[in-house]
């Protein structure tokens, strides 16, 4: 009856110090977010505006995409349209081939994770180098990100030190973060200098101007695009926004929500290719236009990919990103996974206590927890409901429908208090896993009420 998520979470929690480390690291980010948000009296107004702008843009996506594409083309940028991940990967590879590019430097892009671009290109002989420090660490380890903004948040410095010792020849036993960052800086500088092409994601595409806006702290998107002669942008179609006035709202929300910074270090606007160079934008659908038609879930398209929902999520903080079966974890990942394939990713929908904290931090005001609730309601219809929970539910339904039986049960319930633990906490009692059953009162409230003991 355990889901893949709960099994993986149990394994994660078996290492208590690691579990505590992750929870504390992420809670620290959540607190920073609260501090910077509370410094702005207009914070809630910004969230509301962000939601409204995204609702408008997403419900007029055809208009804004056409405007964005035609502005970009007028700026000399080549715009491509990809229906799905395969088409996206093929387009990127074709562009690289046309330029004879062998080495590609990349800044962080969850869309290329979604499309499995790296493996596709590596299999075709392209040298793909991630340049965000966290992403590079994970690429060298050959594992996936465990968080969408802080991809290597689950790792300890000693693990990074050992990795760099093996792969980059750093000093043995030195795991000082400043030292390791310097080692990576030197290593990546050489990759930037020798790259044939740079690929970035897009935080925003501005329809009015054709700008692609990329936000980073490391400056790696800028290094990736300032040196090689070719810049490829992979951009989900929902990333388009109307204009600079909208962008002002989003730039004020994004970094504050993501990491508790007032702004990312770099907010770069790419409008044209460098002189003598080329810039290409690949607009990727990969299921997004289908999500638009889902009346309960289309608002997931408002997502800014800031990660605030996972930082606040008590389940994410205590189970880690790898416990989820979809590549995006946390509340938004639960929903996006279900939109990708309900039968494949339904294990994640129980990874939610319905505390609704994510709804309250989301800078686009997505109703994340309500959507998770909707998915749970639909589990039985796709034959993914937990059989044990179904039996319990029908049993309880019967019980509540028969008052005499219910009151009799209530009268004898205190007997449960006297049962030995090994009987009470048996493996059939999933509720008693990791938590104590409540003590049943000797007299129930209704009994006391009827006897006039309570008024």
């Amino acid at each position, binding site marked *: 009856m355990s889901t893949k998520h709960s099994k993986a979470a149990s394994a994660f929690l078996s290492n208590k110090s690691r579990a505590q480390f992750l929870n504390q690291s992420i809670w620290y980010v959540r607190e920073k977010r609260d501090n910077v948000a509370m410094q702005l009296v207009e914070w809630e107004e910004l969230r509301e505006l962000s939601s409204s702008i995204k609702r408008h843009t997403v419900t007029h996506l055809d208009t804004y995409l056409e405007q964005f594409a035609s502005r970009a083309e007028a700026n000399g940028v080549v715009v491509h349209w990809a229906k799905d991940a395969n088409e996206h990967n093929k387009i990127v590879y074709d562009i690289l081939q046309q330029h004879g590019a062998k080495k590609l430097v990349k800044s962080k892009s969850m869309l290329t994770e979604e499309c499995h671009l790296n493996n596709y290109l590596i299999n075709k002989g392209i040298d793909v180098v991630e340049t965000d420090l966290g992403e590079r660490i994970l690429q060298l380890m050959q594992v996936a990100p465990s968080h969408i903004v802080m991809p290597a948040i689950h790792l300890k410095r000693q693990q990074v030190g050992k990795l760099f010792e093996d792969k980059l020849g750093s000093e043995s036993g030195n795991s000082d973060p400043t030292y390791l960052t310097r080692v990576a800086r030197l290593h990546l500088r050489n990759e930037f200098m020798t790259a044939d092409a740079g690929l970035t994601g897009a935080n925003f595409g501005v329809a009015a101007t054709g700008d692609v806006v990329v936000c980073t*702290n490391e400056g790696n998107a800028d290094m990736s695009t*300032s040196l090689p002669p070719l810049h490829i942008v992979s951009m989900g179609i929902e990333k388009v926004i109307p204009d600079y006035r909208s962008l002002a709202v989003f730039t004020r929300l994004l970094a504050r929500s993501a990491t508790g910074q007032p702004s990312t270090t770099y907010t770069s606007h790419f409008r044209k290719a460098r002189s003598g160079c080329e810039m290409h934008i690949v607009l990727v659908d990969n299921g997004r236009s289908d999500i638009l038609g889902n*009346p309960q879930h289309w608002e997931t398209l408002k997502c800014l990919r800031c990660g605030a929902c996972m930082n606040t999520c008590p389940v994410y903080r205590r189970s880690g990103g790898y416990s989820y079966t979809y590549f995006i974890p946390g509340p938004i990942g639960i929903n996006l996974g279900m939109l990708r394939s309900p039968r494949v990713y339904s294990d994640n929908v129980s990874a939610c206590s319905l505390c609704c904290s994510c709804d309250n931090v989301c800078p686009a005001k997505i109703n994340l927890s309500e959507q998770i609730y909707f998915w749970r309601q639909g589990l039985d219809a796709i034959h993914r409901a937990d059989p044990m929970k179904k039996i319990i539910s029908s049993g309880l339904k019967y019980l509540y429908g028969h008052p005499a039986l219910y009151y009799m049960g209530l009268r004898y319930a205190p007997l449960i208090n006297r049962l030995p633990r090994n009987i009470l906490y048996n493996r059939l009692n999933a509720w008693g896993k990791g938590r104590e059953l409540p003590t049943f009162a000797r007299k129930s409230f209704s009994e006391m009420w009827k006897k006039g003991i309570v008024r």
Partner: protein
Amino acid sequence: MNSKESILSNIRKNSCADYEMPDIAVKGVHYDDSLQQFIDMTKAVGGNAHVVQVGENINDLIRSYYSEAVNIVSNLPEVTIATGNPDTVVKPQDLDGTDVAVVRGELGVAENGCVWIPQAVKEKAVYFIAEYLVILLSADKIVDNMHEAYDMLRFNDYGFGTFISGPSKTADIEQALVVGAQSACGVTVFILNA
């Protein structure tokens, strides 16, 4: 039907709601002393800010801040201390090894320490590849918030511009903040005509 048409037609077929564009009339945060707020914020994000006083020379200041710098790159005429010009390099890679790049900022934003830098050199690499970045910013170009900044934003034919808020940084290893990830290890904003 090509992919563009197919995506657009699927969007049109599936759009199930129609929301109006809201009126973005947000009153952004305002500061009584925007200059001081900008300086405080620049320092908070790991940068440095220096208000240039009457009688202070920008070249002397750069030398005093970066006494060990050998390669100083700038295309600004007042930066006579420059040893190289980013407009005359053959390729952007030639800028690697730059100790200090001196550039002009067009707008400063008090709420977050951002400085808007529209590309004004042949190779934009200069903004990112130098070990240290010096930004010259006029005090009367400081606005309170991003709404005001985007209302005033100007592009030029280079087709690139960036807001920079302090030095390159990362917290990817155990959330420990390290300044100097892939780009500038330090940023100093010299504020002119305050």
